[in-house]
């Protein structure tokens, strides 16, 4: 095969030019990227801030949540709950949450299940405190990934919702949540979870648990708003999240977490 000087120059220029085009330029259309660019315009990202120093374990939040969101009051399921941590001098951590603390903590002894209680004397206590729990509205929600029918999803403002008409009740999401915030709704027979009282926050109200908390231990805010007092605390103070190692990017931030809290 022979090649003329002119042809050789033409072909080598073509190859050099082709190599110079970055790989991404050959990509004609990437819907994901378009979507990501559109997402940047979002004005709202709901987040939650829990101050465990302030929580007194009264359980008004749990009661308020159950009533507001029509969770059967006597069924042992709840969208939010309060855990009591009692660390004793011998180094053991006692954790309980009788009825999810719907009625607060009516006894000083620890509920160890099966109707049994363990009495702990005040002198034995090293530290004791309360930790409210609720859905973390993760940025990387495992419960949404496992849904086989598209019944649970994340809205543009970050809240994970369940479509009651579309949920088939398979329970994958209940197993998938590392925080155990999901449960089976005893009446609707679908997956149920905290949604930051979506009907309230979208009307400019606070969540029911925030409104019923008399101690300011719970606050809801918009992370995209730099002037939001909750955002300011999250950005400037030492906040922590639960089970960060799972990579779920939880959006409920805690003040005053210790290693005992799981």
């Amino acid at each position, binding site marked *: 095969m022979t090649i003329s000087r002119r042809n050789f120059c033409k072909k080598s220029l073509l190859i050099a030019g082709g190599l110079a085009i970055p790989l991404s330029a050959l990509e004609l259309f990437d*819907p*994901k990227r378009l*979507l990501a660019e*559109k*997402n940047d315009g*979002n004005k709202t990202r709901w987040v939650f801030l829990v101050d*465990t*120093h*302030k*929580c*007194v*374990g*009264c*359980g*008004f939040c749990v009661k*308020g949540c159950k*009533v*507001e*969101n029509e969770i059967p009051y006597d069924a042992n399921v709840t969208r939010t709950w309060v855990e009591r941590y*009692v660390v004793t001098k011998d180094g053991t951590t006692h954790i309980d949450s009788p009825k999810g603390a719907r*009625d*607060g*903590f*009516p006894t*000083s002894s620890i509920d160890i299940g099966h109707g049994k209680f363990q009495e702990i004397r005040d002198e034995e*206590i090293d*530290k*004791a*405190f*309360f930790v409210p729990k609720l859905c973390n509205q993760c940025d990387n*929600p495992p419960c*949404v*990934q496992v849904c086989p029918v*598209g*019944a*649970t*999803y*994340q*809205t*543009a403002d970050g809240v994970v*919702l369940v*479509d*009651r*008409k*579309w949920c088939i009740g398979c329970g994958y999401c209940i197993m998938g949540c590392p925080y155990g915030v999901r449960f089976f709704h005893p009446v609707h027979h679908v997956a149920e979870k905290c*949604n930051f009282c*979506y*009907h*309230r926050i*979208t*009307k400019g*109200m*606070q969540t*029911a648990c925030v*409104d*019923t908390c*008399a*101690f*300011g*231990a719970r606050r809801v805010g918009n992370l995209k708003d730099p002037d939001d007092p909750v955002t300011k605390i999250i950005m400037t103070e030492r906040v922590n999240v639960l089970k960060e190692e799972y990579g779920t990017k939880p959006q409920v931030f805690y003040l005053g977490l210790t290693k005992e809290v799981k």
Partner: protein
Amino acid sequence: MKSHVWRPLYVVLVIIAVVLVARMIMVPDDFGIGERGYMYGWHRPSNEQEWKDVKVKYRTAEYCKECHQDKYDEMKSSPHASINCENCHGPALGHPEDPPTLAIDRSRELCARCHFRLEYAASGRGKIRGIDPKTHNPELDCVVCHWPHDPRKEGNQK
């Protein structure tokens, strides 16, 4: 080729057609990817509106204030200022139309949620004045001696 070879193909085509038609009828029109992409946003957007339409039950003290300004003012100038009316009076819902009266919780257990003394210095609970419900006037309602709207006052005020 003989027709019996083609027959199963027709059956398969009919099944595919039935599935496609059923899908067209059963899947809502607005079912789609949404703003969070395939992995997180695959849903029926009209469901967001359904959640937004849930009835608000706890109307907050600002709603109670519209009619009960005197009670609101008494409450907000007392050590109990941060407690919302509905914590003890129950959710307002559509009060005063529906329900016309609210069921007030005057039980000892309600007060004990905060005022049952627990020696938890690491939490806010340890800083609240408290009693042991077992020894502190058992059988007696707290409101007999303590006025909940302003605990500095004596009980049973109107």
